[in-house]
């Protein structure tokens, strides 16, 4: 039976439209019944509320009675919130005490208040304590004294360290294989064109590595296997490559068509150094002779310079084309003026004999056209900076290592030297202070040659360990670069405006 009862209940709950049997009375039903009772007393709803209001007003007079009379019992239509009996007491208390004098009771309160105020304001009670201190102040710290904790707290970048913020990677950006490279100090087997093509001579082959695209082409191969390439030099525009060979010849190659334009034979020994000055190709040979060749004319050999007694291994025209610097195995550095065609004087402007070893490393300063840097071989190891206007040696520095190549890096005004015995590394020097900026270690054998990329951000070094390493050490900060470009733009626009 119990089950059925439960079932019925469920039913009745689920069927919402059915009348609920055992639920509390609905509101309207309650109201009806209560109004009935109130009707019995014979009071209208409005009046009944009046009564309740009176009841609430009265407690001041009769608090005791009021307690029993809850407003709901009075009945009526209005909703009256439940009154807290406590509040009633408080209210009645306040009302009864309204007119009594307060002073006597409240004085301890205020003193307490005062105490609290004083505690919170002063941190102590004035009544309880007094603050004393020894008359006169203790002595002050000496004048000009600064809290040395400042060092602990604040980091101020010193201007010296700010200058050094450039990061120089100690590892090469790229390593290329150079098999069959001739390990010969006197040869110049690497050159980087303004078209961003790196030319390398590996025994009797000339390879071109396009640094922009990364592809390699074999430009030429000498016919006889015992011959080999001794020197390479790009023209300023980077479209022609001069190749000096062991069979005493100089070849001119058009790179685009990969054709040999002409072969010039004037030397009697291997051509170990080359340098272009417009249409004049200067070549130095093992005999110590330097020949100027005008590549445009059939009778190309125009001048012979005879200052060196041994192999000319360093040869560089200055960027403005006014001087040719040559260095030889006879430890001499010669500077030759540009020769006007037909003029008789073939004498050198300066001959410097300060170096104690073979001079292969020669570099002209791109931002100071009268400055020449030269570096000596194993027995010399010195970098010397020359002024070709005055003919004086400005500075010299012992590097404690054979110098095979020197390059000026204009981005940060630095001088880069490549070293053979004993360190086999590359060193970046600040110019003109010649303070060491960084060492680039990595080559496992002597570095033979060093060239700068056309954007001046990278140096390529070729070493006897048969590798070419690219060192991206001179990248310009992109923000600075942008600022520079903007500067250049703004100046050009100014020029345009002035022209208008």
């Amino acid at each position, binding site marked *: 039976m119990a089950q059925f009862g439960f079932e019925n209940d469920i039913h009745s709950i689920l069927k919402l439209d059915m009348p609920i049997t055992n639920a509390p009375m609905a509101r309207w039903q309650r109201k009806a019944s209560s109004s009935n009772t109130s009707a019995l007393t014979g009071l209208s709803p409005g009046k009944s509320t009046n009564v309740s209001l009176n009841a609430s007003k009265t407690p001041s007079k009769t608090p005791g009675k009021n307690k029993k009379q809850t407003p709901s019992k009075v009945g009526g239509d209005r909703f009256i919130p439940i009154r807290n009996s406590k509040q009633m007491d408080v209210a009645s208390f306040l009302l009864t005490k309204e007119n009594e004098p307060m002073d006597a009771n409240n004085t301890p309160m205020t003193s307490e208040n005062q105490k609290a105020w004083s505690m919170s304001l002063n941190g102590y009670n004035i009544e309880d304590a*007094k603050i004393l201190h020894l008359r006169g102040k*203790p*002595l002050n*710290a000496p004048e000009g004294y*600064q809290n040395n*904790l400042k060092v602990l707290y604040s980091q101020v970048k010193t201007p010296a360290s700010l200058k050094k913020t450039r990061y120089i990677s100690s590892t090469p950006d790229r390593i290329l294989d150079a098999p069959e490279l001739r390990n010969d100090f006197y040869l110049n087997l690497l050159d980087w064109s303004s078209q961003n093509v790196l030319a390398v001579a590996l025994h009797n082959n000339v390879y071109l590595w396009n640094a922009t695209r990364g592809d390699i082409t074999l430009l030429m191969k000498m016919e006889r296997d015992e011959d080999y390439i001794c020197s390479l030099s790009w023209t300023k525009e980077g479209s022609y490559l001069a190749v000096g060979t062991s069979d005493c010849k100089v070849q001119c190659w058009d790179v685009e068509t990969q054709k040999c334009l002409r072969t010039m034979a004037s030397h009697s020994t291997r051509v170990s150094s080359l340098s272009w000055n417009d249409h004049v190709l200067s070549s130095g040979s093992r005999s110590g002779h330097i020949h100027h060749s005008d590549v445009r004319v059939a009778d190309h050999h125009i001048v012979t310079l005879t200052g060196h007694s041994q192999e000319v291994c360093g040869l560089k025209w200055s960027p403005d084309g006014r001087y040719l610097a040559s260095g030889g195995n006879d430890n001499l550095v010669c500077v030759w003026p540009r020769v006007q065609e037909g003029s008789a004087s073939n004498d050198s402007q300066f001959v410097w004999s300060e170096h104690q070893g073979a001079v292969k490393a020669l570099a002209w300063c791109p931002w100071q056209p009268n400055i020449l840097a030269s570096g000596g071989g194993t027995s010399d190891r010195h970098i010397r900076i020359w002024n070709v206007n005055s003919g004086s040696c400005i500075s010299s520095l012992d590097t404690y290592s054979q110098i095979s190549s020197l390059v000026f890096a204009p981005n940060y005004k630095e001088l880069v030297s490549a070293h053979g015995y004993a360190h086999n590394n590359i060193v970046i020097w600040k110019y003109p202070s010649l303070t060491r900026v960084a060492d680039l270690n990595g080559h496992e054998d002597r570095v033979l040659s060093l060239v700068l990329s056309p954007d001046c951000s990278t140096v390529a070094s070729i070493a006897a360990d048969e590798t070419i390493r690219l060192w991206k050490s001179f990248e310009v900060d992109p923000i600075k670069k942008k600022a520079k470009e903007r500067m250049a733009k703004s100046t050009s626009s100014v020029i345009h405006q002035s022209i208008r």
Partner: protein
Amino acid sequence: MTSTLKGITLKGSAELVAEFFSFGINSILYQRGIYPPETFARVTHYDMNLQVTADPKLKNYLTNVVSQLKEWLFECTVQKLVLVITCLETNEVLERWQFDIECDKSAKESSVPREKSLKTIQDEIRSVIRQITATVTFLPLLETPCAFDLLVYTDKDLVVPEKWEESGPQIISQSEEVRLRSFTTSIHKVNSMVAYKRTDSA
């Protein structure tokens, strides 16, 4: 010495607390860089290296204060010691090192030594001084040259001694407070606290 190892008397307690104040004040002056570090000498106390001023004038000033304080500690009339650090130029209060002293005045009547070994008291003192040293890490740097002052809160009925005068509380407006450890000799209890001016960034 044997008696101090066993227990502690009011006199011994006053001496211990005064000694703590002497080293504590010196430590604060050194750690907060109020005076150049080269004017401080290193001493070993409480089994730790402490810096004590070697400047004769400052030394004299501190001994004056501490010896007076010792007297008050003995009388149990001192309530607080406050080291106030003010900016020399603006006279603004930058830091306030407050040491609340609770004296057990019953010790004045009975001279029975309390049961607490010197070693445990010194251990507690050591940890307070260590904390003072450690505050350098969070207290703001005192960038301007600063001066300090020592305020002593005493009982109201105390007769102001010669050379001493009443002073204001020198409260920091808008301060940040850090409670440090406390220690007790079982007669004197010292609660330490440092308040410092809130920096705008905080």
